[in-house]
């Protein structure tokens, strides 16, 4: 069995299909072309501009989102490939006005300057914590290497994440 979205030979005419994406717990139905990346689907079709487009080539990490709890580069996957998966973006981390502990820590540690990489940094850090492989600053640095910060706020970013990892570790 195969789900055929569009099998017409391509002639440059765009062809869209209707898909359902599960984003931050709610189902969103959108009509998109197969070549739409998840990043473009979020930003251009759903007006969810919290997820940022930096390089659009998987090199900077600004577009990091979580799919089934795992961090990925949303610029390098097609929206149609993510049907049925649980997608979480920066918009879905807080509970109402209550910020996610990593969001709190980023503010507390001044872990940004311009803020453009921040949604990707925070989603990546959530993924990092889900993975449970980083236990100290050096491991955090290595396992956050997929997120670039042009302003160079790395020191404070590592401090913010380390604080949350240490706190959660004590609570666990």
């Amino acid at each position, binding site marked *: 069995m195969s*789900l055929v*979205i569009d099998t017409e030979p*391509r002639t440059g005419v*765009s062809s869209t299909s209707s898909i359902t994406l599960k984003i931050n717990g709610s189902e969103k139905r959108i009509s998109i072309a*197969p070549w739409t990346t998840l990043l473009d689907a979020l930003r251009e079709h759903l007006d969810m501009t919290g997820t940022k487009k930096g390089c659009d080539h998987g090199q900077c990490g600004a577009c990091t989102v979580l799919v089934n709890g795992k961090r*990925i580069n949303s610029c390098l*996957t097609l929206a149609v*490939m993510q049907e049925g998966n649980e997608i979480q973006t920066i918009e879905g981390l807080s509970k109402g006005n209550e910020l996610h502990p990593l969001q709190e820590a980023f503010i507390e540690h001044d872990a940004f300057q311009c803020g453009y990489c921040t949604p990707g940094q925070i989603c*990546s850090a959530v993924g990092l914590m889900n993975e449970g492989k980083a236990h100290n600053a050096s491991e955090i640095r290595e396992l956050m290497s997929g997120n670039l910060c042009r302003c160079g706020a790395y020191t404070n970013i590592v401090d913010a994440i380390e604080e949350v990892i240490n706190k959660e570790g004590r609570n666990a």
Partner: protein
Amino acid sequence: MNPFAYTRAYGVDTALNEKTERAHYIGGGTNLIDLMKENVMHSQLLIDVNHLPFHEIEETESGGLLLGAMMTNAETAYHPLIEERYPLLAKAILAGASPQLRNMATNGGNLMQRTRCYYFYDTATPCNKREPGSGCSAINGYNRIHAILGTSSECIATHPSDMCVALAALDATVHVSGRNGDRTIAFNDFHRLPEMHPEKDNTLESDELITGIELPEKGFKDHFTYIKIRDRQSYAFALVSVAAALELDGDTITDARIALGGVAHKPWRDQGAESLLKGKKATEENFEQVAETILANAQGYGHNTFKIELAKRAIIRALSEATENVHLS
């Protein structure tokens, strides 16, 4: 990206039947989508193979493991059986890319990734791999990241994978399915040298699909290392990498594997050179001899000539670290 159609395959037969010369299988998409955005690769149809049932690690009858082709690189590297029995593979995978990319990239896709040669990516320049017959811009161009072993007059690109360097050292086997049935390909025969056809990265037929990667029983867990030398400490491709694995009886070497990354169109093995170590003591002098032998026919192209000496030193250091089983890098 050029417009294309998309289909999701839930069975191997469907995937194989949909495959044409102008269709591509898509796993993680981390390299393919990037190359399509760059207009380097074009597809009429993407066949999503992520729903095929190759997401597990199975024990084989011969005492090894069969890694599902659609498992991600991260799932593989952190799998308890890989950490315990094939730590060389885990270390090599974790030396590559970023956590986000390792969460997306599949094992099969890792084997299929294309070179990161700048000219391959730059559609304004000639490249025999991208456009056969157009010429190689790297040979007389800026070639700092390029190959020093097994090159041809047509192409000096390198294969970018870290995972594949470990798989070469471990003598893995690639399991593939095609319309004419299933077959296995020894890892060393999977990727090819450029010769006169650099457009062909590997020996897979156009309809074939990778379904698994088999590891033989021997995992060299007591004496191994993966050293990756690069321009920054994390999230960069190798200038030179070495997967070294030794079997020792006291301080006598009974088996040795050395695979190099970043130096050739495929993970580079020289079994003749490796056999020089068998029955010898694990000493720096013997390591120097094997390093000289492996690089004896190396050729630099100017900017990358430093890789010849770098590779020799990396081999010696890797063999020393494997002997002591210390992992400094």
